């Protein structure tokens, strides 16, 4: 079988750091080839080498059997290689067509010939079943649609090898399914695909071959049909990975968090949390399951004092904390792993050490009389970095921005857990992380529970909620529709609850069928 792309023995070094060490990847025509590795394993570096953004120190690249030297992205484009980036490169207030032709605008007597371009976009869109409106503005279309525009962009430029970089990171489950279908369609039409990901189920679903890299080294290539998620996870992480987190039965004690008929409005004044009741006890993990946008964010923001409470009250250890300032709430025993670590969890332009002191910088012994002792800050940070295995280039002095997502998250968890809060709120704590980091974080949450702390977990991932929680409260349209035990429910039941059907309703429906 003919290879369309062969990357043989690629080596790429940054200073003393070897990002890619003797990696080989061979893509056959008409296949989906997954590139699997943890965050920071060197997947993006390898693809940037292929795309001409980096020059390798050693190794060969062959396209359609011919040795090539890809010196910049234009060369890659000419060879028919296109890339759909994780963060889309689109101009928000341009139309689909304008974005697609950007950089190679077709002209007619010196003016842009938008009509012909739009027609071509339309044809391509129909050919590949993308269903994109050439005249829609980017800011008006969904994230999934925007991604299709990126796909169209590569097709418009004549790519027949398409690289997808973590394509599902920002998509809804529905959009993910559609993307998988699009990828299959692309293959049918004769394209070849490299799929960069660390999500095992996606690989199992669409790919033909998997090349695994770990810490910059090529581990090998396996055929998807001859492997399974457990084996892939082991290859990726380099040790056995437990998907089902081991834990002893919970032993719930006194009530730590008590929420009574809470109502919270969003920024537009629309009620997002409606008359919500919730109890979390010491020594248990309560998981909030639900589809994004059913009031989870507003609920957490209300508990932590970041959003005004419209009605109802929140008690911590029996004491009213409703409407207190965030710092007062934090100090009264709440730890908070925020859902958006870049927006709320970290000051990305601060060193990670400063970030670890974000909740304690104003207290003794770190500061005295308004003067911070940065030696103590760094000492404290090193301690957390050690304990929570936060990996970075320059230890506590590395900019938070330069750390991988998993390591950023570990630093946040270390910061919040070390303050020893009675209630730990973990909002989407594993979003975008690889299996190794997920396992680590789940263990820490369970550890807190076993220490007798109350843990409130918010997640959109069903298996995470099922795995980690002792109680599952399903949120729908701003209220808790039902509370179930993970041992006595199924993903199907949860799915129905999350869609707003109470189990009683469902049984009735079942009876009439």
């Amino acid at each position: 079988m003919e290879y369309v792309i062969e990357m043989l023995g690629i080596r790429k070094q940054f200073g003393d750091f070897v990002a890619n060490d003797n990696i080989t990847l061979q893509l056959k025509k008409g296949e989906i080839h997954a590139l699997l590795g943890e965050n920071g394993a060197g997947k993006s570096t390898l693809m940037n080498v292929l795309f001409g953004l980096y020059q390798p120190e050693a190794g060969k690249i062959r396209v359609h059997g011919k040795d090539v030297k890809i010196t910049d992205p234009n060369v890659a484009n000419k060879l028919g290689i296109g890339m759909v980036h994780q963060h889309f490169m689109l101009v928000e207030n341009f139309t689909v067509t304008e974005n697609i032709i950007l950089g190679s605008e077709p002209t007619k007597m010196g003016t842009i010939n938008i009509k012909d371009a739009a027609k071509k976009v339309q044809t391509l869109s129909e050919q590949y079943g993308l269903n994109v409106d050439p005249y829609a503005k980017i800011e008006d279309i969904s994230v999934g649609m925007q991604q299709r525009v990126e796909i169209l962009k590569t097709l418009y430029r004549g790519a027949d090898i398409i690289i997808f970089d973590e394509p599902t990171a920002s998509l809804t489950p529905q959009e993910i399914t559609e993307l998988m279908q699009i990828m299959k369609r692309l293959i049918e039409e004769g394209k070849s695909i490299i799929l960069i990901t660390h999500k095992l189920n996606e690989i199992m679903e669409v790919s033909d071959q998997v090349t695994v890299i770990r810490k910059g080294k090529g581990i090998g290539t396996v055929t998807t049909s001859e492997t399974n998620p457990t084996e892939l996870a082991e290859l990726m992480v380099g040790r056995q990975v437990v998907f089902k987190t081991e834990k002893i039965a919970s032993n719930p004690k006194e009530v730590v968090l008590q929420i009574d008929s809470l109502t919270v409005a969003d920024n537009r004044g629309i009620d997002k949390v409606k008359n919500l009741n919730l109890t979390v006890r010491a020594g248990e993990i309560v998981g909030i399951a639900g589809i994004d946008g059913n009031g989870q964010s507003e609920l957490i923001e209300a508990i932590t004092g970041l959003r005004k409470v419209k009605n109802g009250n929140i008690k911590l250890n029996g004491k009213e904390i409703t409407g207190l300032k965030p710092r007062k709430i934090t100090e009264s025993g709440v730890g908070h792993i925020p859902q958006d670590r870049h927006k709320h969890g970290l000051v990305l332009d601060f060193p990670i050490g400063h970030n670890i002191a974000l909740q304690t910088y104003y207290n003794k012994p770190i500061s005295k009389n308004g003067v911070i002792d940065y030696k103590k800050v760094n000492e404290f940070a090193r301690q957390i970095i050690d304990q929570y295995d936060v990996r970075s280039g320059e230890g506590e002095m590395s900019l938070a921005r330069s750390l991988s997502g998993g390591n950023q998250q570990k630093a946040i968890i270390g910061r919040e857990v070390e303050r020893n809060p009675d209630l730990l709120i973990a909002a989407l704590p594993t979003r975008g992380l690889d299996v190794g980091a997920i396992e680590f974080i789940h263990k820490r949450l369970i550890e807190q529970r076993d220490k007798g702390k109350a843990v409130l977990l918010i997640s959109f991932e069903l298996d995470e909620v099922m795995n980690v929680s002792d109680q599952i409260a399903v949120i729908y349209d701003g209220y808790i529709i039902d509370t179930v035990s993970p041992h006595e429910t199924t993903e199907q039941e949860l799915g129905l609850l999350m869609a707003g059907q109470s189990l009683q309703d469902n049984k009735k429906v079942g009876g009439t069928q």
Partner: protein
Amino acid sequence: MSKRLVNILVPLISILLGLIIGAIVMAVSGFNPIDGYVALWNGIFMDTYTMGETVRQITPYIFSGLAVAFAFRTGLFNIGVEGQLIMGWLAAAWVGQAFELPAVIHVPVALIAAAAAGALWAFIPGLLKAKLQVHEVIVTIMMNYTALHVVNALIGVISGGEERTEKIHESASLRSDFLETITDYSRMHWGFLIALLAVVIMWFILQKTTLGYELKAVGFNKNASEYAGMNVNKNIILAMVISGAFAGLGGAMEALGTFENMSKLHASTGIGFDGIAVALLGANQPFGVLLGAILFGALKNGGLNMPSEAGVPTEIVSIVIALIIFFVASGYIIRVALERFGKKRKEEK
């Protein structure tokens, strides 16, 4: 090429390039560049008098640079340093002439008044930004004009209809016989020591205090700061107020040192606006601002000598000085060029 060498080479090459292009401009315009640069040099270093005047010129630039840099480090763009500076100038001039106090009290009181006036003028845009999300650039620009006319009106009131305020009492003056003697009666005054102290203060606030930690955090990421329990609005206002206080002190240098009074202004002094360039030259670092102010003030003062000694007209002088500053500010280009050069040499080996 070692990093250290690059760091030293970049500013040197930048200044050299600026001088070369400036020389071309002078030559094309029909003036002798060598004469021009000799005059520039003499205007900075010729004798103790010019050196004293150079230091005097540098002093307010340090303050205006610090004011812009401080706001910048906390995520704010304070274009209103000019207005805050002249408010401080008037406050210091008024305290200097209206009261009779012993010097140990009079100078500090005048300085505090200047800082307070500048701080007040910056408080308003800070408050509007914090409470109503009005962009500080617009408000501070407008308040420069307001300050100009308010100051001119107040000068009239204070002086009973004169064009300038009375000379300040000697007890409030920063000038000294000692400095005048060693610099051949230049207007150099003790303000440069206060400016150096201000550099250290800014460094201390930003690098050592919880206040500085909060201000920087809010400047980088308001959401994370709020999450960590900081009062974002308070910090925005405080950042503007401290920035304005630096600007006000810059005005005090003119009131208590250079001029010892204040005359009605027909237009901006330019010190506040030049502070933006000084801050950028210094990469918004306190000690960088000091270096930037030295370069800026020295060129400005040296340039004054070029028309009289070398016959280069003021307009050409401005172009030459602007070119030098342009090249220093675009040091990045030279850095990249040097790195390419270093790489090529390595490959050839």
